[in-house]
């Protein structure tokens, strides 16, 4: 029978939540790696039992964990992330140049075709790849070496490469996003990169439509239409129909277009989800009401999804990597909050229920649909 496995990274450990296809009774496993920040867990689409986890700590640095049994047991693998060549400098908060320094892995994105290959997006922003299941890591330095690199600057959360999107129709194409540099695309498997930020406007930078400097929070796409990209920017929900060559705003009737997470329905490429957050300084939902917004028109026209979600006195945040979609016929949608709740909808967002309510602050959510 079909099952789902939800992989939850939190501020104090990882949790694995499993259910059958009905998605109404859940088993909770964890905490794994108790006490550590688990920025992200993700699974290989080639081998669903192969999981990767980014385990990090201000005291003890970075660890990468790997599981070959769906998260029952784990093995620490390689944790050496060394920038290629001279690390160089980027812009610091005060405008001075600051050396590139590795801090942590924000996001792990396994290859679509090889279980041993996995990409890591790190802070300070760079992209690494392992082809031996996480044992060794090598930087794809063409990204950080882009001519605009010295002008990249950190957002409030650090200068992180937090989003990696594969193009299933073009093996050599990949998209990444960096706070606060913007979105980038490679068409040659990571050797060279181009900024894809035309159409973005950001009031927080002096040249509002600059080539780089935009605080892109998250990218999402549907595998059947990889040239259509959706973006939750710091402010503004954006859409591209040409693989990022140009963007236009689709915030439409959202109550606020600030937010972090964005995702696409598994079977309806024009159905997208966001969680509006009040503002960049008030990181909670407007009016204390936790609402997911769904657009069935690829943006601009949005409906609030509230059934089963708290509609008063709710002041949690939903972080950029904390929303996921399963691929069951009745598409499941999941998101986690900084208040430690993980909500699930088994009906594409029409209704919601918490899977768990009292975890540490949730940093990331992924879901696997298993046979």
């Amino acid at each position, binding site marked *: 029978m079909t099952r789902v496995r939800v992989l939850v990274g939190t501020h104090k450990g990882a949790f694995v939540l499993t259910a059958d296809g009905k998605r109404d009774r859940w088993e909770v496993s964890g905490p794994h790696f108790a*006490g550590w920040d688990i920025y992200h867990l993700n699974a290989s689409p080639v081998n669903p039992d192969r999981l990767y986890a980014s385990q990090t700590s201000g005291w003890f640095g970075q660890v990468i964990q790997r599981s070959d049994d769906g998260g029952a047991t784990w093995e620490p693998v390689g944790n050496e992330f060394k920038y290629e060549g001279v690390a160089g400098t980027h812009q610091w908060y005060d405008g001075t140049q600051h050396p590139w320094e590795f801090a942590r892995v924000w996001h792990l994105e396994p290859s679509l075709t090889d279980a041993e290959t996995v990409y890591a997006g790190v802070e300070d922003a760079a992209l690494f790849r392992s082809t031996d299941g996480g044992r060794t890591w090598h930087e794809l330095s063409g990204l950080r070496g882009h001519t605009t690199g010295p002008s990249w600057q950190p957002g409030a959360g650090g200068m992180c490469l937090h989003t990696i999107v594969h193009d299933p129709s073009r093996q050599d194409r990949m998209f990444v996003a960096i706070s606060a540099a913007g979105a980038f695309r490679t068409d040659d498997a990571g050797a060279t990169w181009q900024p894809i930020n035309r159409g973005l406007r950001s009031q927080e930078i002096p040249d509002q439509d600059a080539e780089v400097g935009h605080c892109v929070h998250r990218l999402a796409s549907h595998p059947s239409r990889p040239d259509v990209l959706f973006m939750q920017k710091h402010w503004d929900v954006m859409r591209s129909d040409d693989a990022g060559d140009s963007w236009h705003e689709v915030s439409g009737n959202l109550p606020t277009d600030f937010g972090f997470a964005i995702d696409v329905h598994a079977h309806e490429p024009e159905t997208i989800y966001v969680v509006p957050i009040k503002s960049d300084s008030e990181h909670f939902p407007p009016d204390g009401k936790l609402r997911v917004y769904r657009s069935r028109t690829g943006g601009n026209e949005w409906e609030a999804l509230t059934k089963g979600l708290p509609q008063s006195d709710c002041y949690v945040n939903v972080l950029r990597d904390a929303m996921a979609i399963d691929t069951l016929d009745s598409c499941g949608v999941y998101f986690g909050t900084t208040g430690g709740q993980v909500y699930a909808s088994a009906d594409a967002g029409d209704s919601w229920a918490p899977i768990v309510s009292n975890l540490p602050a949730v940093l990331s959510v992924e879901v696997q649909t298993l046979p």
Partner: protein
Amino acid sequence: MIRVVLPTHLRRLADLEGEVRLEVDGPVTQRSVLDALEARYPALRGTIRDHDSLRRRAFVRFFACEEDLSHESPDDPLPEAVAKGTEPFIVVGAMAGG
């Protein structure tokens, strides 16, 4: 035999319980003890000191014989009691977090 005490998080990471007991060839220093420790438990590489520079991570401290040795040279001899195994070399996560 050198005795090393690790903080809980690193004991779990290395999948060990209690004190570590290590044979160290040559002078007993921070460097030689940590080299031996990481050789036996490779998962600890990069968690106590930087991979490349081998400098102590900022929020890790080294104690022994009721002294803070964190700022001593990694090549200075450790106290005789540590070298003889009567006192442990203690790796500590610095107090932080409220």
